[in-house]
């Protein structure tokens, strides 16, 4: 059986054709998905990663960007702990719709959702329509992390997911996020339990008088 300290629910959102599925594929399979077609509804993948000494299982929901699937994909948002918000640096249109996607994520998933903005298709720099600077300004204004990625070359893909996971872990450590709260998108795994020498709660349980 897989063992991990935490399980995080992640979303990959953004307009159609920005390369969301390719990012997920690159992250999980370590290769570029060649003949990719439109995602129907939602796809699902998972990977266990090591972040800051903890084992974290990322449960990633990759959503369709097409408008016709919007209401279906929205129904998967609830309880996500993190999200990759993806646009295509060669398409201003995909950049322009970021605000709408972000609103969706914060209202439907959780106001505390940790979002990292990914400007994908970094490898197509000559066709760039969105500058690094304006995107990073948008990220700052909206309290997002930001990276430019390439699902083709794999540049920054791993980093995007890990950065998001690390931020969530930090928030757990600082108490900003409570994994025990329902709908937090975080679950404890088996390891966290095994490492407890004396369970915290053992003191809480009134020791019963020895019956011998």
């Amino acid at each position: 059986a897989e063992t991990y300290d935490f399980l995080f629910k992640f979303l990959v959102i953004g307009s159609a054709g920005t390369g969301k599925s390719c990012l997920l594929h690159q992250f999980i399979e370590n290769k570029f998905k060649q003949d990719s077609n439109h995602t129907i509804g939602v796809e699902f993948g998972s990977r266990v990663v090591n972040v800051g000494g903890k084992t974290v299982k990322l449960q990633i929901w990759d959503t369709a960007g097409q408008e016709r699937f919007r209401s279906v994909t929205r129904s998967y948002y609830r309880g996500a702990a993190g999200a990759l918000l993806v646009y295509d640096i060669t398409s201003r249109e995909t950049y322009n719709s970021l605000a709408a996607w972000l609103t969706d994520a914060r209202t439907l998933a959780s106001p505390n959702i940790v979002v990292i903005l990914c400007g994908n298709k970094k490898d197509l720099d000559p066709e760039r329509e969105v500058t690094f600077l304006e995107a990073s300004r948008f990220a700052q204004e909206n309290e997002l992390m930001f990276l430019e990625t390439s699902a083709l070359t794999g540049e920054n893909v791993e980093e995007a997911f890990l950065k998001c996971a690390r931020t969530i872990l930090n928030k757990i450590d600082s108490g900003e996020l409570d994994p025990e709260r329902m709908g937090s998108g975080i679950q404890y795994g088996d390891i966290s339990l095994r490492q407890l020498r004396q369970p915290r709660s053992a003191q809480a349980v009134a020791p019963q008088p020895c019956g011998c």
Partner: protein
Amino acid sequence: MERAMEQLNRLTRSLRRARTVELPEDNETAVYTLMPMVMADQHRSVSELLSNSKFDVNYAFGRVKRSLLHIAANCGSVECLVLLLKKGANPNYQDISGCTPLHLAARNGQKKCMSKLLEYSADVNICNNEGLTAIHWLAVNGRTELLHDLVQHVTDVDVEDAMGQTALHVACQNGHKTTVQCLLDSGADINRPNVSGATPLYFACSHGQRDTAQILLLRGAKYLPDKNGVTPLDLCVQGGYGQTCEVLIQYHPRLFQTIVQMTQNEDLRENMLRQVLQHLSQQSESQYLKILTGLAEVATTNGHKLLSLSSNYDAQMKSLLRIVRIFCHVFRIGPSSPSNGIDMGYNGNKTPRSQVFKPLELLWHSLDEWLVLIATELMKNKEDSTDITSILLKQKGQDQEAPSLSAFEPPGPGSYESLPPGPGDSKPEVLAGEQEASADCQDVISVTANRLSAVIQAFYMCCSCQMPPGMTSPRFIEFVCKHDEVLKCFVNRNPKIIFDHFHFLLECPELMSRFMHIIKAQPFKDRCEWFYEHLHSGQPDSDMVHRPVSENDILLVHRDSIFRSSCEIVSKANCAKLKQGIAVRFHGEEGMGQGVVREWFDILSNEIVNPDYALFTQSADGTTFQPNSNSYVNPDHLNYFRFAGQILGLALNHRQLVNIYFTRSFYKHILGIPVNYQDVASIDPEYAKNLQWILDNDISDLGLELTFSVETDVFGAMEEVPLKPGGGSILVTQNNKAEYVQLVTELRMTRAIQPQINAFLQGFHMFIPPSLIQLFDEYELELLLSGMPEIDVNDWIKNTEYTSGYEREDPVIQWFWEVVEDITQEERVLLLQFVTGSSRVPHGGFANIMGGSGLQNFTIAAVPYTPNLLPTSSTCINMLKLPEYPSKEILKDRLLVALHCGSYGYTMA
């Protein structure tokens, strides 16, 4: 002299004690003389014999090479034991398996022997060949008192056997509480792993030793998995040990969530998991709510995974349904608290119980959104002038090429299952939008239909578990209504879904009625296949046609009282066994096998309608039967109706045809279809005509003064029976006449014979579930039960009349009969049905065909030909109106069109 005296003395003693008084010289013989005495602790005798002998007290004998000291220790012969020790027996002597006398004393709990052995400095630390020591033996059997004495002498209480097991391990495995405590008090290592990494807690859990686990946890035992990662909780769940799980959770509350998550593990047996969760949920209301909420969350995640196209359909579907089954089971059982009333969560009661369904709302919401999306896609296609049926047809074709979705989705490497590119994926995106949209739509439906259907099944299960048995949840009905079109599309794509994810349709007639037309549109042959497939599903070797029947299960009947004796024996027989196989033997006859079974059904079907029993009456035309409303003259009539139902059910179950034809209305009763006024014709054709007349004419000004009541002759006295409450004072008007006709029909056709119908159905349903029989209509049911009637064409020709210009010799008539010879038996039945309204020829042949008023021969009347004109008929006078077709080919073509489209249902010609 003295020698002689001594000899005599010895002889006397020996005779008095009935044994030798002197040991034989040789050790082997001597030891077998002593052994029985040691076993019985006859220490004086042993002492006496040993005193004058040179016997070696450490002599090892037998297969396992034990000494007499072993025997004494084993049997608890403490006096002999001391005697032997005094005589110099070695207290640490090991037999062939390495066991010392102390081991044996410990194993058998010989307390005194043990302490004596210790006194004579027996070594408590000796291991046998398997590494077991005396304390292991005491621990296995839970001999705490002895252990207490012994353990003080032990150098290492954690001494391991060959498997690395300590005394604590074995005590825990066997659940000896006080032994465990004693060992722990003596400093045993509470977390000691054996060679495979199993700790004492692990051992306690592997055998569900609740109290022992509790002691260990109380004393701070760690929760550790073995070297294969198997945890104590895994063991408890595998064994279904709910109480032990409860203890684990008490000390490790997070395990609670782990158990709930375990429902996703397909390797665990569902019934064990269910047992554990059921136990936990019954501990308290709050635990109950917590478990169900947890299960609902897990179900939702799994449902979402199922609705995500990259997951493996088959595995994910099974996982979701398993979790939901467990959830519903636990919900229904409820906590053991007395307030166990059924809580209709979906009917608006905001009780805590109904709150457990809340996490699932996310999944139902997604399901809803998906179905709306698909409805939109279907609609878009309609607008794109693409006929929906052609899409469906195309899809069916496509499905055949790439049949199952699961085959379409092999699990990808790693945990990511990618969807391989389907056909047409390589199409460049610039392709004409419309074409792509339609392809897309097919795509969306074909890849999601199975997944959505499984989630719908889960939804149904969750809705149903909040309802009393047999009732369908209003919320689910509303759901089906809302997504009517999409669900119909799913059923159309794959009608067999009603036996799978849409099984709820078979359970709820009210829902099934919406889909019936799709099901009934499937070929009769297919439905027969499904019927038998599901009738026999769940039975062992269901594909075996003639299974051997054991001697005890043979139905032994008397030929001269076949009806009564069969009734008696069938009512006593085991229903499940009869379903599997049937064997009949007539009293005093040798014959057995299918031939006898066939004969039995034949005779019985004649007997059932035998007028002597007054169970069934003939219809007006003499070809069919239906229950006799006066059958109560036979005091046992309801028993016999039940038996008749059993025989018909059995016959259908074993594909045996019976030789009875029932009225159309009775077949409808079997199917649970409401009767209509036309069915009255079979028992009272004249009255049926009158009902028809009322319907066809304006009755406003006729002054009929009919009310919603009828006069009935009850035992010679006329009595007014209201058709509905207060019917006697409600006038029949032009507006309510349809209701009147329906009610009066029900009175004549149903209410009059309701007890008989009920008894019959009770018997019938013992072998044929109502959910399966409803796949057929009344005509098909007749075909299934009684088979295709034989039609003798020559007899038909001989007894046919011609009118309105036709003659026997006319070419059209010649062609007609040639066509009748050509067509299949089924089509001839349809033709007969088309013209006479009955699919059968009465006994005695076509000469006896009845019309609305007495004998009425089959008649063919001429009609002037106009192109495309179809033949018509007047069933009440058995007349076929056959246009004067210009050729045989046209005649055949038109006739077949008429038969296949219009043989059922009436229009007034």
